[in-house]
């Protein structure tokens, strides 16, 4: 099992000062993770998802982190490929540059965005997002593999051009895609891409998703890129020596994550924030109930919250399901920086070595 960190860059009730601090806090988290031997840091790309995600320029963040770290891989989880967000040539150039400067440490994920907030802010035609994603994906891989690139497709007609530089990982950095819909893991598998999933449902459901993905990826015959059979998911995580403290802060953060996500992705509206979501601690009764529910049969697998013993149990569930990588969402809105740092250290020292 590989262990990585996920950076939404969440922040509850930001001020200009706290927002600026957030970015430096995330750099500190990433460098600590590097020292402790975590596998990768994954940064998202979102636009305008106030409080839920302030990571709108992940390429800059990752480049900065690359310079401050030695081993840890640098993941785009994910780059938005519809061309109104990013022109494919610019993406190919940026990823290759980051790959060179980081010494071949880039993991590259792509996707099409699913929040109305960013879709409409960039004036996208919603019906074309999927096809634009696929066309850009094909183009970018072709840019990396051809000396002189040209392309004629549905959205682009590009004359012969040298797209430079090329990534140092040959033939290209490992590639992944976001899976946010019920059937997308299988779709992503058919394309031969690594799957970046939310951690949703119980063991049996997730196990089924992994099985569907493996089945699809085994049959995949991607043209133009190397198959990447890899299933990752993103549990909300806070692991501290003090079980109750971890739960008190961790569940509050996990709730902030799921509630804000729900407003931006499933409310059928286009909130501009701030959001009307709960930010307080659970009552003692609720906290006790949530603590008791952890790792019981049939319970959700969306969180790894508690002391190292509890965390090892949760991770074992995901190992049994045959997940390849856990992208831990420790950077959750409402959780103070010192606790995130403590959690990265505690997990790295007392959970990671067991798997």
């Amino acid at each position, binding site marked *: 099992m590989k262990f990585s960190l996920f950076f939404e860059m969440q922040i509850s009730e930001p001020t200009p000062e706290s927002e600026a601090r957030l970015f430096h806090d995330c750099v500190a988290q990433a460098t600590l993770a590097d020292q402790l031997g975590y596998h990768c840091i994954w940064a998202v790309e979102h636009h305008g998802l106030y409080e839920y995600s302030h990571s709108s320029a992940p390429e800059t963040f990752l480049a900065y982190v690359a310079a401050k770290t030695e081993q840890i891989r640098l993941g785009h989880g994910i780059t938005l490929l519809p061309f109104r967000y990013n022109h494919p040539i610019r993406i190919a150039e940026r990823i290759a540059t980051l790959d060179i400067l980081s010494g071949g440490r880039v993991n590259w994920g792509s996707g099409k965005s699913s929040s109305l907030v960013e879709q409409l802010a960039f004036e996208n035609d*919603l019906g074309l997002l999927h096809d634009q994603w696929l066309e850009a994906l094909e183009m970018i891989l072709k840019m990396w593999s051809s000396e002189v690139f040209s392309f004629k497709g549905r959205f682009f007609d590009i004359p012969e051009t040298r797209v430079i530089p090329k990534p140092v990982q040959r033939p290209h950095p490992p590639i992944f895609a976001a899976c946010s819909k019920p059937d997308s893991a299988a779709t992503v598998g058919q394309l031969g891409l690594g799957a970046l999933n939310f951690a949703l*449902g119980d063991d049996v459901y997730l196990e089924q998703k992994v099985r569907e993905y493996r089945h699809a990826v085994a049959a995949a015959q991607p043209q133009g890129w190397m198959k990447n059979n890899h299933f990752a998911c993103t549990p909300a995580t806070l692991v501290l020596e003090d079980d109750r403290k971890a739960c008190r802060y961790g569940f509050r953060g996990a709730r902030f994550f799921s509630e804000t996500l*729900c407003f931006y992705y499933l409310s059928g509206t286009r909130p501009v924030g701030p959001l009307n979501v709960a930010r307080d601690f659970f009552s003692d009764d609720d906290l006790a109930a949530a603590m008791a529910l952890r790792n019981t049969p*049939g319970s959700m697998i969306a969180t790894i919250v508690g002391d190292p013993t509890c965390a090892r149990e949760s991770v074992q569930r995901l190992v049994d399901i045959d997940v390849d990588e856990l992208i831990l969402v420790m950077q959750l809105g409402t959780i103070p920086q010192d606790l995130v740092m403590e959690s990265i250290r505690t997990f790295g020292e007392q959970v990671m070595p067991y798997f």
Partner: protein
Amino acid sequence: MKPSRGEEKWKVAVTGGAGQLGRLILRRLVNDRAVSSVVCLDLHPPRLSHPKLEPAIADLRTADLDHLFMGCNVVIHLAFLIGEYLPRQRFHAVNVKGSMRVFQAAAAAGASQIIYSSSAAVYGMVPGHPEPVVEETPRVHQAAFSYAAAKYEVEKFLDTFEQEHPSLQVVRLRPVVLVGEEMENPMGKLMRRRRLPSFGEAPLPIVWDEDVADAALLALHQRASGAFNLAADDPLPPVALAEETGMGAMQIPHGLAMRIARLSPLLSKVGLGSLIDPAWIETSDVRLVLSSAKARGVLGWKPRCNTAVEVMQHFLATVPQKVERRIAAFMKMAALVGRCGPRQPELRSIRLAIHLHLTGPGGGDFGIVVEDGRVKASAVPPLSVMAVITMRSSVFLDLLAGRTDWGSAQLTGKVHAEGQAHAPMIVAGMIANYRMRSQQPGVSGFLTRTMARWIESGAGN
């Protein structure tokens, strides 16, 4: 139950999986880590969707059971026509011959255990039984009561069948009348209206249906065999039971009840009531008091409702009498928004059928279907369900009123979700949509706000 890793995994077939008891057993099986897959045979689709579940629409008289049971280690046989008053021949063909086919096919498939839901009626609903009735109490064939007779005949067949298949573990569960959240018989209908029908003085033998489902799972895990009575202790006559629990006793003179029952074939033809075998009424005066000591001792059965009074109290606490009007109004509004509101582009590629199960006073069962980018609410759960979301009606009202939030309700187990994992987010999104709209300007915002104020003024806190 949490078996250690590496334990053998069972494939289980369930007949009658869409029925009252079947649904409860299916749910337990799919959530059981020792069970790798479940085949459900029924005339109707099971109200549950799960990757482990393979539903088959099957009639026990004709289905290709050899094929359906292939590879099954355990067959749980629940399918049985109970209350319906059918021509004797058809009743016999389904219940007795159908059961025989099931047992024989289970043996042929190489199953190692059969769990059959027999009935307390196997002892015969006749006067003169000892008290309490134990598993060794002689069974009496009661030809005049086709249900009891069929149960008797099936067990008689099993007596010989067991000797012919000594390696097969055969469990005979003998529950009394099942009381639970989803009773489909006339008694259940009356009980939902907080009325208990009373035809006579004999104690009403009842048991909570989830306790019976638990017993089936215990029998499975312990590889048990033999007969097990399943009844709540201290049964009371209906009038006393109603008095004890604050329900209304509906005393129907025996003679009148008999006349209604005899007329029921005629009445049901013109659309009044359902067919009732008059024998159900005739035998309601018989004392049948069972001891479940063996199930407790051997299976370790720990029913959540130990006594008949507890069964009834549990029913009153969990089974809604009438949908709370705020919930009803919200669901109507959600149905309207789903039909006429704008499509949600982010839902375009999602198709989901959700059963929203609200328990407790004021609750009810609803459907939420996602298709064509719309979230369509309806007053009935969809037939073929991909996920079940369960919570108390008071929690649902708290969510609508913003007194609690979905994230904590799910993390604390107040909301329980099964099946397709996006389903809880869809319901959460539907509530978020409503809360967002109540903050918007314009007519729709005003109407939603007015409704929100009314909902927030309601029960809860």
